[in-house]
């Protein structure tokens, strides 16, 4: 006796998205070589920045902070989230190369779940990344000036931004031809970070980085996360950071869904 085919339409979207997100998470956990760059490189970078450039706090124009680590934590989180986005893109590209993507497309699963599942997984991993760096910072003497609300603000902005970067990674994977192409994007992560005020105050950046950083959404996101950690819960920077993260995420998800449609049309 044949099983009744499932009802078509959006009713299965939720469970499918969750199932694909779970698969993405399990795969990531089973490949430490994927997760290591997310955490280890930014941690090493953070350590060297703090250890090597702590004296720059004495520069005129540098804001008053308890410690250079407090100032740098947001940059480390942001760097980690960006690498997470590239990693999500590489995973999708490998799915495409390996044929799993075709398997999903050929199934009755709603196709937008292919993007949304990966994006949801990116958000979950982002939460873990933010928590990791906050705990690390606390362990090494930093503190979150904004208290519990401050932690919540950092988490919220971080998760939204991480979700957005994941969607960007998916977008790049859908447009690129191979996983190695997506991997080639890796250096750009550092470029866009360097031309922001993630690591250093806007006033102290050299030209032309200072001009670009003024408009770079990453500057707003970094500032939004840094405010509650290094300073206090001032709503404007936090809201600006959140708005930048939301806008980035919305645009990225929209573009990746369009890219998915384009890819399926061309198949």
């Amino acid at each position: 006796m044949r099983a009744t085919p499932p009802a078509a339409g959006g009713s299965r979207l939720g469970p499918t998205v969750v199932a694909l997100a779970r698969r993405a998470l399990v795969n990531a956990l089973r490949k430490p070589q994927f997760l290591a760059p997310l955490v280890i490189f930014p941690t090493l970078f953070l350590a060297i920045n703090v250890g090597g450039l702590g004296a720059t706090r004495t520069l005129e124009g540098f804001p008053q902070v308890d410690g250079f680590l407090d100032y740098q934590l947001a940059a480390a989180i942001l760097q980690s989230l960006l690498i997470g986005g590239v990693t999500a893109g590489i995973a999708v590209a490998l799915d495409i190369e390996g044929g799993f993507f075709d398997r999903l497309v050929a199934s009755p699963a709603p196709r937008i779940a292919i993007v949304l599942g990966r994006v949801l997984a990116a958000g979950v991993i982002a939460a873990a990344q933010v928590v990791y760096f906050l705990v690390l910072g606390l362990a090494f003497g930093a503190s979150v000036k904004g208290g519990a609300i401050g932690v919540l603000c950092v988490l919220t902005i971080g998760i939204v931004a991480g979700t957005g970067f994941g969607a960007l990674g998916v977008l790049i994977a859908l447009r690129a031809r191979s996983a190695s192409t997506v991997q080639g994007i890796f250096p750009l992560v550092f470029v866009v970070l360097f031309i922001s005020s993630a690591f250093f105050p806007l006033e102290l950046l050299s030209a032309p980085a200072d001009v670009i950083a003024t408009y770079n959404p990453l500057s707003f996101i970094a500032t939004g996360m840094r405010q509650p950690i290094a300073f206090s819960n001032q709503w404007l920077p936090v809201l600006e950071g959140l708005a930048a993260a939301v806008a980035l995420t919305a645009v990225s998800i929209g573009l990746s869904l369009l890219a998915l449609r384009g890819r399926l049309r061309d198949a």
Partner: protein
Amino acid sequence: MQAGEVYGFLGPNGAGKTTTVRMLVTLLRPTGGSARVAGYDVAREPSQVRRRIGVALQEAALDPLMTGSELIELQATLHGIDPRSVRARGEELIGRVGLTDAAGRRVGTYSGGMRRRLDLAMALIHDPEVLFLDEPTTGLDPTSRLTLWDEVRRLRDEGTTVFLTTQYLEEADQLADRIGIIAAGTIVAEGTPASLKAEVGRPHLDLVLAPGSDLALARELVARFGAQRPPTESCHLSIALQRGAPDIAPILRALDDAGFAVAELELKQPTLDDVFLAKTGERLEGAEEPGEDAPQQREPLPEAV
């Protein structure tokens, strides 16, 4: 193995063929026992062994960025061949395997058959005494396979000893002077193809009589010529022969004299597959499970950081 022979090494997946080859060519240290190749102990004198063997492994591992000529010349250099002879020797071997026109192209553009041929040429660059071929025709089209078989026969005629592992019984039957069958790490049979087949059975004459024939009477009639297998279908006879083809005419005459009409007949010889089945309990062709012989498998690795 005897010098100058082609030795076929057969076994199901996971039996230990590739492990054996890797030990004999000094890529894997044996955990026990000893082996001598070209007169040298593989464990104690590996460098001497390597000078005298040529190896074409299961994967034709070639550098896709290099041309065929460059690869041959690199191999020659690594074997310490006199630089004045490298180019000439390379051209000779490239020509021998029919790759002259492709020699200047990068290996990344070669077909599977071309890669195998280049792999063989590289294995022969230093004129080895013993040549190891690990499943050399797997994945090749029939024409390329036959070309490679001709090359193996030519090498044998020139005096090279060839150790050949293969999944294809026909290949072993065609090429090997002697065959060894390995199962679960042990040699379970060894001999010439003919002697191995003779060990497990006799030729059979399968007959199909005209419809309506009295099968019982026919069976009684031919009983004196040899043992019969139970009929699997009506009007079918299957008789074991002592000698083979020479035994057919008397049987047909007897049936004809008794008024039986023979619609079809077939002489069936025992095959290596029958040998394999008798010695290992399974058939070689159609074995599906990837085992230690699959080139991708390696021992489990610790996860990298």
